[in-house]
């Protein structure tokens, strides 16, 4: 179990998280909340990058104050999008496996296995600095799973990934969870949380406002359309096609003419349609990301409705 006992973290006078009590079981647990709600703080506390102001954390019986033991069983894919200068994907993963203490031969095998898991084997010897945001995300993911941890902590791991890659990575997470791993994933994309999680922890302003199984979130999401921003080369073409979809509530071209805001009540079906349109129209898509304002509205709805235990 991963256990938080009365954990608080203050940055000076600013609250990070307050009096968190959690017991996290194997499977996929999503930390959900708007920006600034304390998701990353909780993950950084769990991995020892931050020290709690008060309280106690143990990860499978190990304190985060013992990195030499903890990180044999824990991998953390953080949001820090930085790499050593000039590193290739393979070189980057290999180097940190060598720091673990593995031999050269072990390192090479484990690196290759991790790169294959995230579908990066072909680009493994290219410099990370030339990668897209989504590829860099996958390099970090590969690095965090390369040493076969039992606990995987992932801070917004789907950021920057295109819809196809999102689906693949979610499938990988599901497979790892089914194999008995603990996956703690932060996200502010509610429908993805709904798709992949076994349980959710809902955070708001540093407090855990609800926790439990994921099913309760689904109904709430369906009530509220989510807004998605698609950055692409021909937003007009995309808008015309997406309006054919019955669940598209609204489509609005971004002021810079290089993006499209779409509101939909059925994100799953929307993403499938988006994939299809992108392929058919040969669109150059730079990014696909939900827009925060609408999500905040959903969170507000969630945290001001029942509260406490999610159904």
């Amino acid at each position, binding site marked *: 179990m991963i256990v938080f006992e009365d954990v608080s973290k203050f940055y000076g006078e600013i609250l990070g998280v307050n009096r968190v009590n959690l017991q996290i079981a194997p499977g996929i647990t999503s930390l959900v909340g708007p920006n600034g709600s304390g998701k990353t703080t909780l993950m950084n506390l769990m991995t020892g990058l931050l020290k709690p102001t008060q309280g106690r954390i143990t990860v499978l019986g190990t304190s985060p104050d013992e990195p030499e033991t903890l990180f044999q069983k824990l991998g953390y894919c953080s949001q820090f999008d930085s790499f050593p200068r000039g590193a290739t994907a393979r070189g980057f993963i290999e180097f940190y496996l060598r720091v673990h203490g593995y031999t050269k031969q072990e390192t090479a095998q484990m690196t290759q296995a991790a790169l*294959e898991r995230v579908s990066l084997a072909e680009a493994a010897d290219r410099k990370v600095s030339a990668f897209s945001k989504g590829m860099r995300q996958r390099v970090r993911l590969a690095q965090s799973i390369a040493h076969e941890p039992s606990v995987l902590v992932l801070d917004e791991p789907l950021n920057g990934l295109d819809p196809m890659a999102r689906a693949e990575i979610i499938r990988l997470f599901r497979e790892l969870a089914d194999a008995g791993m603990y996956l703690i994933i932060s996200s502010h994309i509610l429908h993805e949380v709904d798709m992949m999680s076994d349980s959710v922890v809902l955070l708001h302003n540093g407090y855990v406002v609800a926790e439990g199984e994921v099913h309760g979130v689904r109904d709430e999401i369906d009530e509220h359309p989510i807004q998605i921003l698609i950055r692409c080369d021909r937003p007009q073409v995309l808008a015309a096609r997406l309006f054919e979809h019955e669940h598209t509530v609204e489509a609005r071209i971004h002021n810079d003419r290089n993006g499209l805001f779409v509101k939909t009540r059925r994100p799953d079906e929307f993403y499938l349609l988006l994939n299809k349109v992108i392929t058919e129209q040969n669109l150059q898509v730079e990014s696909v990301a939900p827009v925060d304002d609408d999500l905040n509205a959903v969170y507000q709805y969630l945290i001001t409705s029942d509260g406490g235990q999610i159904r």
Partner: protein
Amino acid sequence: MSTTSEIREQTAAVMNEPNVSRKQASSWSLWTRQTLAILRLEIRKNFLSRRALLLYLIAASPLGLLSLFALFRMPTDDAGSFSELSIAYAAIYGGLILRTLVFFGCAWVFMNLFRGEVVDRSLHYYFLAPVRREILVVGKYLSGLIATVLLFSITTIGSMLILYFSIYPSESARFFFEGAGAAQMLAYLGVTILACIGYGAVFLLVGLFFRNPIIPALLLYGWEWLNFLLPPLLKKISVIHYLQSLVPVPMSEGPFAVLVEPTPAWISVPSLLLFTGVVLFLASRHIRRMEISYAGD
């Protein structure tokens, strides 16, 4: 993307065979392996990164200046007697190489060992590895030491040879091969190495504690430079006092200097090494409690 069965096969292949070595390794062998891994990357960074350019410039500057002096010196210029060369080199070594170039070279390298990674936002990768933070400090410190010792040893030896051989080639050959030259050179080399050891530890610690370590480095520079004016007791709270005690030809410190007996080598060397050990211990303790947020860095 791999399927579940493929993943399981890959995992089994990796887990069953070789990567048991980490679990089987004794603590010392694991720590050695981890230190060497850190050393490898850090040495590459110290020698090949953009930050290394300034270090090369600092280390090469006396060689360049002395080479220019040798090239453009008129044969009729009065260079003084051969014996005066040792005093001239003592002044160049004490005033320029030791107090300024080695000092700032070490400041640049060692302060960036941790501070540079915070600025580049890459320190968390080390913090997320199953490595004792003490090993991280030792690995990084050794990498800085290798870079600075190598470069400033070349500076020390190279500038001595250029100065001597450009003015009195034949006398210099005898001095280095038959006389006291080689011993003097080794003594200077030893002082350079000790300077890198001592200043290196200090600057590694400074880089951990200060977001902008330039100001403490300049304050330290002032303290070390004004050492000749300090009363005997305060002189001993410095690195330069012990180094100055070890140079083979003492440098004149001017009419205002407060003169004290040099500290004997059997006290100076162990004192410097003990001081380095204490500073590295403090750095290790600090880094065990260090948090990473990168905010404001």
